[in-house]
């Protein structure tokens, strides 16, 4: 890993953390619907998947989860494990979708949002030892579609901006 790449990844991690903080101040997604978030940080993960490799995306994803856990929600609590599972699930599926399917960046983002919700609900069912949470899943999946589209559009714009920047630097 050269220094430029390390710097880029570090910058992207901090962006993801900041986006996470910003989105938690948007009241609709904070209070009205428990468990529903815009998932702005996911846009950063998509950018990393498209610009760099899968391992780098996993670094950024896990880095974000750990830092947000450290400064906001608390490490090793239930919420931490929920976001960890969601992050791992969505990163893996988005990489696979980008590598092996014809999906555009928006489709990749929707899949990521879906699997983030799926991973979180599965982990919550495991941790709380109750199957009843599956009745919340269709609502979460339904809302994952619009949030996935929004985040996908965002990632698309960030990518086109960053592509120009990176091309200029080289």
């Amino acid at each position, binding site marked *: 890993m050269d220094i430029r790449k390390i710097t880029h990844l570090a910058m992207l991690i901090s962006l993801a953390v900041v986006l996470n903080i910003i989105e938690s101040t948007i009241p609709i997604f*904070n*209070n009205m619907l*428990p468990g529903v978030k815009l998932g702005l940080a996911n846009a950063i993960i998509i950018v990393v998947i498209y610009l760099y490799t899968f391992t780098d995306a996993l670094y950024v994803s896990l880095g974000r989860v750990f830092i947000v856990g450290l400064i906001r929600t608390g490490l090793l609590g*239930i*919420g931490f494990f929920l976001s960890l599972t969601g992050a791992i699930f969505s990163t893996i599926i988005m990489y696979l979708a980008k590598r092996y*399917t*014809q*999906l*555009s960046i*928006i*489709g990749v983002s*929707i*899949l990521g949002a*879906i699997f983030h919700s799926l991973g979180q609900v599965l982990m*919550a069912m495991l941790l*709380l*030892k*109750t199957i*009843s*949470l*599956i*009745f919340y*899943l*269709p609502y979460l*999946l*339904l809302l994952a*579609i619009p949030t996935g589209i929004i985040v996908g559009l965002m990632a698309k714009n960030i990518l086109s901006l960053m592509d120009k920047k990176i091309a200029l630097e080289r």
Partner: protein
Amino acid sequence: MNKSDWQLLAIIIIIIISLFAITSLFNYNNSTIATVYYDNNIVLTLDLSIDENREYRVKGYNGDVVIETKKDMIRVKEEISPLHICSRQGWVKSTYEVIVCLPNKVVITLSDNKNKLDTVVR
């Protein structure tokens, strides 16, 4: 969005609709037994057809959780948590709804009388 995006969207929507359909089949069993868990241990079992219109205090991770019951219904009235998700959820009466208060590590599940033997065995 290209063609495969729309295909993906169609598949996801079909899955969501079938999930809604499957879950709504089970959704409206009225129930009478409420079980309260703290940290995965049963702390309280209530028969909602007998224990009507009462309040119970259960120990939660952040402090006491106040649970109120009505005929065949239960809710969390007061608790200490950042977002108050479980007290905002309000009255719950279906077997397949569940009240989860993550910050307090309190879970309330409902089951109907037919399942009573299962509870005794456990």
